[in-house]
């Protein structure tokens, strides 16, 4: 009996070792394929694009991919073939993860190998990865990125101030106070932003001959639109508070406005930070819509810069850069929203000062 149990123990540790092995092989296959190729490209040089093409089609690149493929197949077969026989949950999770990573490597490698054989491959690389051509335009690129942030941030500031005011109006007990705010909010939510920009700039600003730049008009229209969405966010934040919070304030003699200012709004604002930041991310992307109105040269944001630069070079690398620009701005914000939401769910924000 004792020896049987001992043997079970041995199997257990052997299988744990095996499962770790599968996980490592699976992870290694993906790292070789992606990081290995990237390093190889970097060492060979990424400009001009012809270097990228020759690296990508070189036999050395092929050997990297086939090595990765071999590792991946080992991980897939070992992982999905054995996971049912694992003795612990951790071991099972490890082999399944190894198999899944291997599968991803297979997909990446097969797609890439097929793609680089195609007759459009070098044209594709030239279209999207001719970074050397962007050189003279990079100063304007950073200016455009800065403008994107300023447009979105200013719009968001107007939107939050307007939104909080509208939310307080919409929560009024009096229909005559509530109704106009509700009409405004629903109008803004019901009309496409492109339409608002057209009407606001082409119709109002140029139509009436006002001396306002696209940049400023864009900020105002974005803000007026964001105000409607912020209002709904603030309203839901205020309504999510318990009724007793307001009653306690009123019963101590605070006026409605005092109660809102000192008790309700400070709490509501904490709760709505994640959805407001989500809206900010959307606003960052929506700044690109202003581009169709035609910015002054120094006022251009990322999309306007990208299409102008494309127009000059007839090359899409400007779009690649501009997409990367948006991601550099938005991804950290998205991460922050997720982190804040997790903190809110665990109740930490409610208590903290």
């Amino acid at each position, binding site marked *: 009996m004792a020896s049987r149990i001992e043997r079970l123990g041995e199997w257990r540790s052997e299988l744990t070792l095996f499962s770790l092995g599968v996980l490592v092989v699976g992870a290694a296959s993906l790292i070789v394929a992606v990081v290995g190729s990237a390093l190889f490209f970097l060492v060979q040089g990424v400009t001009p694009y012809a270097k990228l093409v020759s690296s990508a089609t070189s036999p050395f690149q092929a050997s990297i991919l086939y090595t990765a493929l071999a590792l991946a197949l080992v991980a897939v077969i070992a992982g999905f073939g054995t996971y049912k026989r694992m003795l612990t949950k951790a071991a099972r999770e490890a082999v399944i993860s190894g198999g899944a990573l291997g599968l991803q490597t297979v997909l990446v490698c097969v797609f890439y190998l097929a793609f680089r054989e195609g007759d459009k491959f070098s044209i594709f690389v030239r279209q999207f990865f001719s970074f050397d051509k962007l050189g003279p335009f990079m100063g304007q690129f950073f200016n455009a990125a800065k403008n994107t942030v300023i447009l979105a941030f200013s719009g968001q500031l107007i939107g939050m101030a307007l939104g909080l005011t509208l939310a307080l109006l919409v929560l009024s007990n009096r229909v005559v106070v509530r109704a106009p705010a509700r009409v405004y909010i629903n109008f803004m939510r019901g009309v496409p932003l492109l339409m608002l920009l057209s009407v606001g700039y082409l119709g109002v600003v140029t139509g009436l001959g006002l001396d306002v730049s696209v940049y400023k008009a864009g900020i105002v229209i974005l803000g007026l639109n964001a105000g409607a969405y912020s209002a709904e966010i603030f309203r839901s934040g205020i309504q999510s508070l318990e009724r007793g*919070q307001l009653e306690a*304030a009123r*019963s101590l003699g605070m006026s409605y406005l005092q109660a809102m200012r000192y*008790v309700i709004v400070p709490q509501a604002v904490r709760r709505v930070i994640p959805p407001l930041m989500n809206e900010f991310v959307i606003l960052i992307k929506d700044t690109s819509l202003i581009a169709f109105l035609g910015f002054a040269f120094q006022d251009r944001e990322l999309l306007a810069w990208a299409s102008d630069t494309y127009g000059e070079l007839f090359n899409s690398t400007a779009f690649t850069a501009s997409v990367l620009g948006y991601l550099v701005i938005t991804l950290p914000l998205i991460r922050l929203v997720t982190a804040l939401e997790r903190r809110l769910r665990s109740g930490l924000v409610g208590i903290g000062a």
Partner: protein
Amino acid sequence: MSGNSSLVRLEGIHKHFGALHVLKGIDLAVEKSGVVVIIGPSGSGKSTLLRTINLLEEPSAGRVFFDGREITDIRTDVNKVRTEIGIVFQQFNLWPHMTALGNIAISLRKVLKLSQEQARDRALEELEHVGLGNKAGAHPGQLSGGQQQRVAIARALAMRPKLMLFDEITSALDPELVKEVLDTMKRLAHEGMTMVVVTHEMGFAREVGTRLIFMDDGTIVEDGLPKEIFSQPGDARTKSFLSHIL
């Protein structure tokens, strides 16, 4: 009962919530320094009645007098009246984004317009009064239910009200925390505070109450001395209610 010494007088109070008729003609006078305890089955309208006294519920019909003035008069400054009537709720309703001290000081600053030092000193004094002088910097989430409720009492008392309303303030507490809150109320009663107390604590009603009111179905069924009602309930409904909870 409606002599000149009464601090609160309700006349013919009705309250409807939509189709629901919650208060059906309540007349009640509360004498100065009296401790009026209201008991009754859930849904009988006790909390609603209590909340009409500081106009958290506006009566559908009837008049409320406080300290000689009709406060249901449309020209009354309700905010001003409420500074003289403290209320403590079942759910504490402390503000979680402020410290215990902040919870108390904010209305002293913004409503009574005290200076920052005056507000802080008075808030600290009230916290010490309920035995929580060392918790001034704590946020509500860091306090036990009983401590939170005592902060809520201190918050109401800091306004120096003439009347205190208590709305089932021990009902949300763990049993071992009830006593500290009841003790605070008892001391307040002994200090001569006029109090209207909705509660299920029959021991408190018997010991501290100067008057007991039994409500059922939106009306006052019985009104008298606690000892007498407990020993000889006059109405069958009172008898049935007391037999269920005692």
